[in-house]
């Protein structure tokens, strides 16, 4: 089953994919382009943990001139950076490099603490596609990748669907690809991950409890390129669907930096 969370007709709804349309829980059927797509996640009572992997594909590590890590390079993201399918992501004014990252995102289904790799899949609710944008201009070597690079508003599109585990018998053998304005710029397979999903669940749950609704973004293969306002970025994973996003300039142009605002207000 492919599950979505959408805004339609003045309310937020859970929906499922049905014959190329969305089926709402009250029986209404609506077209994909008639709704606003939200991240396909049920609300949780506490802020969800969003773990994200860096350099988890050997080719991408090489692309960024790093040797493959000996243990997972993990960073955390806040929920405030998530947006849904068909939304817009802001490219800050004046930056040189903003790149997409097509990633398999894993949604935890039940509380996982000290889980062994053989049991790891029992704790997964499903899968979706994440686009974990990075603004490389802001990279600093302190808790790198730092939040100014990776935790910006609109910086993490997620969706369109949460796909049940039953529909994805082997998430470690899915083709990934990204297109920019229709041209393929990134392609790979989840089988090339350095640390696979069972490893990651065992590794994280050894020291932190993963709760239902928590996310693991499992990293991206090579093939990242700069994106500019107006570019349409589609990150797609076999069996999970295609997550579309459009780059946009900041709404306020020119954006006054905070310091400039303060100078102006003096």
């Amino acid at each position: 089953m492919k599950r979505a969370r959408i805004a339609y007709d003045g309310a937020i709804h859970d929906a499922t994919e049905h014959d190329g349309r969305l089926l709402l829980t009250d029986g209404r059927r609506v077209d994909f382009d008639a709704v606003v797509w939200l991240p396909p996640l049920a609300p949780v009572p506490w802020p969800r943990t969003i773990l994200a992997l860096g350099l988890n594909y050997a080719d991408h590590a090489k692309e960024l001139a790093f040797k493959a890590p000996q243990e997972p390079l993990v960073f955390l993201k806040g929920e405030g950076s998530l947006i849904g399918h068909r939304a817009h992501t802001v490219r800050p004014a004046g930056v040189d490099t903003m790149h997409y990252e097509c990633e398999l995102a894993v949604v935890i289904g039940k509380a996982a603490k000290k889980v062994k790799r053989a049991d790891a899949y029992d704790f997964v609710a499903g899968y979706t596609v994440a686009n974990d944008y990075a603004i490389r201009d802001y990279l600093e070597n302190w808790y790198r990748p730092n939040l100014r690079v990776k935790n910006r508003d609109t910086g993490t599109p997620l969706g369109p669907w949460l796909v049940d585990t039953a529909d994805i018998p082997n998430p470690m053998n899915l083709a990934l690809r990204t297109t920019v304005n229709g041209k393929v710029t990134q392609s790979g397979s989840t089988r090339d991950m350095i640390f696979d999903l069972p490893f990651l669940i065992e590794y994280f749950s050894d020291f932190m409890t993963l709760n239902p609704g928590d996310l693991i973004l499992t990293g991206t293969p090579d093939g990242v390129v700069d994106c500019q306002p107006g570019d349409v970025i589609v990150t797609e994973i076999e069996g999970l669907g295609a997550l579309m996003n459009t780059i946009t300039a900041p709404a306020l142009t020119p954006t006054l930096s905070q310091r400039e605002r303060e100078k102006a207000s003096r």
Partner: protein
Amino acid sequence: MNAFPILAAGTVYGVLLNAKEEWDAWAAQMSEPPYQAPPQAPVLYIKTANTWSVCGSAIVVPARAPEVEIGASLAMVIGTAAQQVAAAEALAHVAGYVLVNDLSLPHASYYRPPVKYKNLDGFLGIGPRLVTPAEVGDPARVRLEVRVDGTLRQTVDCAQMLRPAAQLIADVSEFMTLRRGDVLLLGLGAQRPLARAGQRIEIRAAGHAALGTLTHTLVAEAA
């Protein structure tokens, strides 16, 4: 986690190297590998919900770590969203303050995100209560005292933060919105004390009785 009416919704963000004394201690290394340059933006990290511990609870120290580092701080709970706010207006976005104990496993490198050191279950003590901005007044006047088994081990002077509360909110909100319910820690003091299983930690703010005393006992992980 149902005992957290004060932290229902948001993400908890901490900041590294905000205490002047800690910055000064690191200054000589900042231009060396792997850092190459002093940090420009606030260096943030996240304390996930699995780390939250209510006041008075026992916090489990993993078997692999003989000692944990105590991170006393003053937490600012955001009341109205702060997005690219100026420092002059920043404190208007704070709904209240609460004491926290941001525990870490000691780690010598600040190069990679500290998830496996800072996001262990129970590793953020919070409480005992959320206090209004009017009761706290200027957060720079808060001085935190850390006691381990009754002995004073550290004093954190919030006046010594390189980015005071308002400037920190402004500089963070420049690149990400602090949403209602999000929490931003003002920073940790330098020379953070260590404690081990069996010890009792108390954090209070001298002269700010309303903030109360945040207490925890460390316990060893069951074999």
